């Protein structure tokens, strides 16, 4: 987070030194792109906030902790696909799951679907790629995440 801020500041300063007018054009372009996507983005954040209320992390841990084996994997895949949890919650959660004896496969499937599949962000994704492609990308990512989880289960 701080790295990103520092990098942006440096790039911005260099750009300003090199060409003031062009930098302003760039900033205007960036601001316009941001404002264009802002409403859709806020709507998705609202959906996610409601979801996180309905399924808080401790509830998630309880569900994931119950099933091992295939029901566990299926549950993890489903929860991971729907949820949009920032890394600073997801990884500690994964660590708790591993420590409480949940198989690596279940944890890997949960983490990977969480990263690659985003059902709640589909409306946002569709604004850029269209619905068909967004569905396709998420479906392929879901299959891919299952594969990764399976391999993790075998090799870890």
């Amino acid at each position: 987070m701080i790295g990103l801020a520092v990098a942006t500041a440096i790039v911005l300063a260099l750009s300003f030194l090199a060409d003031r007018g062009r930098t302003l054009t760039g900033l205007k372009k960036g601001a316009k792109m941001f404002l264009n996507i802002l409403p859709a983005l806020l709507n998705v954040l609202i959906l996610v906030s409601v979801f996180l209320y309905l399924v808080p992390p401790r509830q998630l841990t309880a569900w994931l902790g119950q099933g091992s084996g295939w029901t566990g994997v299926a549950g993890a895949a489903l929860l991971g696909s729907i949820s949009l949890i920032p890394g600073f919650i997801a990884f500690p959660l994964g660590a708790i799951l591993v420590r409480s004896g949940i198989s690596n496969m279940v944890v890997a499937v949960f983490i990977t679907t969480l990263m690659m599949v985003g059902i709640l962000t589909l409306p946002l994704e569709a604004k850029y790629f269209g619905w068909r492609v967004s569905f396709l990308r998420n479906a392929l990512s879901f299959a891919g995440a299952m594969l990764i989880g399976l391999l993790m289960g075998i090799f870890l």
Partner: protein
Amino acid sequence: MKSKAAWVIKRYGFILLFVCFIAFSSLMPFAPGIEVGRNFRLFFLEMAVILPLMFILIGLFDVWVPREKILRHLGPEAGAMGILWVVLLAMLQAGPLYAAFPVAALLWKKGCSVRNVFVYLGAFSTLKIPMLAFEIGFLGLKFSLLRALFSLPVFIGIGYLLALDLKNRNFAVKEPR
């Protein structure tokens, strides 16, 4: 003027309604509403910090990086090296997946191939260095390295599959307006 108001309501109506709901909840007080509001604040803060920075970088990228450079290194003719470059680019970034969509749109506009656009999204979602550091801290080096190692061929494969599917479909990444 009237059409402008309609435009604002159409775009921001749901958000305004939500804000009213949260305000109402804290007045009542209505506990579920307050908790939803707290969640929203958490996500909103993450977004409010990362996205403006991202869009500053995207805007500057747009004016400074010439199209022919992207076309040559990430375009349809770029080959395997193109994959390497988009993966490295994605690894250097931070933020949730939805922050990658506008970057993908820009890359596309500058001539990046369909395959590389989706490889970029895959790498962004699974291999960001700030996220990997966090993952290693909590789940261990072995877990994280193996997961990254298995993810790489998977999302490259997804890139190839999507490119194949979209070959004759006149696909374009849109800029939302």
